[in-house]
């Protein structure tokens, strides 16, 4: 009996040790961004100072520099605009496709769906060279429109896959009843299936938006001018002047962009994971 109790206490302690060690290791860089954001430059660059505490009073100088003298807000706006347009394109393409593949194509739906999902595995680093030429031919290089056109190529496959899983869970009888009542197949899709799939659609919206903010390779390849940058490329490229790193402003820029995205993503995490594990977990 006593041995059993010791065992339970031991496993609790072990669990907490593991959880705390990993949480500290994984979250530390973000804590470091936070403390760096508010430290005076003189405090940051004095080697004798203990870096874990404020040796001089906190300051807002880095935030002022970031918002007042860099194109940071412009990059935030660019990223948001691209996000909204790519989400729209993704929904327009993925919703009907996912519906058709679950309901209208019989036994070909699943293989085509898997084929579409597999294209998600073709990485940007294999396609960026030919695409840079395509983007140049379309005269889109150095504008945000280059990524607006290219991003749906990786958001659509995953969204189709997520939505297929979602539509499969809607009972067929609902649509059949609506069609008996006089709606066409298309009408049943638009007036019935889309409204009851709102949470699936919202999942796709959030997932697409986070993919857009996380993307790096295409934005780096297609866009060079400072004013047209996306967040993920603008911050590491243009907040470094010559060889000088403005660490305070850099860390502020990283933190401010990361945390909202992380919160959004967290809300929908379980659904995204379901997309990755379809078939393996049942």
């Amino acid at each position, binding site marked *: 009996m006593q041995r059993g109790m010791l065992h339970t206490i031991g496993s609790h302690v072990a669990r907490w040790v593991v959880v705390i060690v990993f949480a500290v290791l994984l979250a530390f860089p973000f804590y470091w961004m936070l403390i760096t954001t508010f430290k005076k430059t003189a405090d940051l660059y004095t080697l004798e100072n*203990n870096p874990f505490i404020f040796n001089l009073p906190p300051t807002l100088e880095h935030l002022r520099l970031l918002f007042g003298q860099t194109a940071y807000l412009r990059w935030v706006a660019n990223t948001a605009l691209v996000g909204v347009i790519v989400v729209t394109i993704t929904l327009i393409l993925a919703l009907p496709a996912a519906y058709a593949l679950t309901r209208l194509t019989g036994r070909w739906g699943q293989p085509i769906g898997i084929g579409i999902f597999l294209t998600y595995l073709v990485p940007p680093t294999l396609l960026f*060279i030919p695409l840079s030429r395509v983007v140049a031919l379309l005269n889109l290089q150095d504008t945000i429109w280059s990524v607006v056109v290219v991003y749906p190529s990786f958001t659509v496959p995953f969204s189709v896959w997520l939505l297929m899983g979602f539509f499969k869970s809607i009972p067929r009888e609902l649509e059949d009843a609506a069609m008996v009542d006089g709606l066409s*197949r298309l009408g049943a899709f638009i007036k019935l299936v889309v409204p009851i799939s709102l949470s699936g659609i919202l999942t796709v919206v959030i997932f697409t938006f986070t993919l857009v903010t996380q993307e790096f390779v295409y934005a780096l390849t297609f866009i060079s001018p400072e004013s047209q940058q996306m967040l993920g490329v603008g911050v590491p490229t243009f907040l470094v002047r010559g060889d000088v790193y403005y660490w305070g402003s850099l860390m502020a820029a990283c933190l401010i962009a990361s945390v909202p995205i992380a919160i959004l993503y967290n809300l929908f995490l379980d659904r995204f994971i379901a997309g990755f594990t379809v078939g393996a977990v049942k």
Partner: protein
Amino acid sequence: MAIGQSQAPTETVGVMAPPPLAEGPRVPWRRTPEGRARLLGISMFAPAVLYITALIGLPLVLAFVYAFTDVKVGSATSHWVGLENFRSILQSPSFRQALLNSFIFTIVSQVLVIVGSTTLSLALKDKFHGRGFVRFLILLPWVAPISLGAIGWKWILDSLYSVINWVLVALHFYKPYSAPMWLGEPVLAMASVILVHTWRLLPFSTVILLAGLTAIPKDIPEAAEVDGAGFWRILFQINIPMMLPIINVAVLFGIIFTFTDMTVVYILTAGGPFDSTQVLPSLAFFTGILAGDLSQGAAISLFLVPILVVVAYLMLRMAHRAEIT
């Protein structure tokens, strides 16, 4: 189960048009309800398929074509050069280094990710107070844009102001100004790049394993414990074997996300010092985009294809198996 009229006969439509009616004029299959549903279906998924074909299929073909020509940025014409690009990159020391590094980068980081995420997911599987907040902290590296996370690490690993070095000096492992240059020495730079990538992928792998763990019945490990099996025995003979299918999923995605990634390397070291952290994707970028040699860049990136094909095959086999069971 009331299956709609449009569905039941589809099985035959899938193979051929329905048999002609015995009497009366033949109705073209497009006019039958099944045929119309089929046409509607095709017109609904065709736009997505066309978009993907234009922006993934076509560039993929172009990547192969470029690799056999001498196309450069800005050149109007190009010529077929056969295997010339491959011969020249295979002779280049940078390429050989990048090929080797890509495998080291992928294998080492995946081993670390799997060991770490298995440990962490087992620790997180039961509900406890504060689990939601812990999950948020743990997920940060995966959900934050990786280029920004990597910049955070670049500051942590700074040659002069590294917080790690400050701690090492404070603990008297090193004298001031003699602590390691994490990103400036070949072996340390490679280790740093691998660790930062592990940091980035560990949360992803952990949540996938957590999803798998919820599907494992709890009573088997519990019964084994009642029978007197110890912690390690339950771990290696029950928990881990039962987790294997989901570990496979995590590893396959992990391999793709690692072998094809250039962001961490690009931000932290740009492949340096002396190509010691160069990987295939970053070398393809420097050669094809920055130096403008599209054909050689394409040839380098084609070396990603065999790995992608193997992973895709394994995923298909897994999906197929899951359908049967």
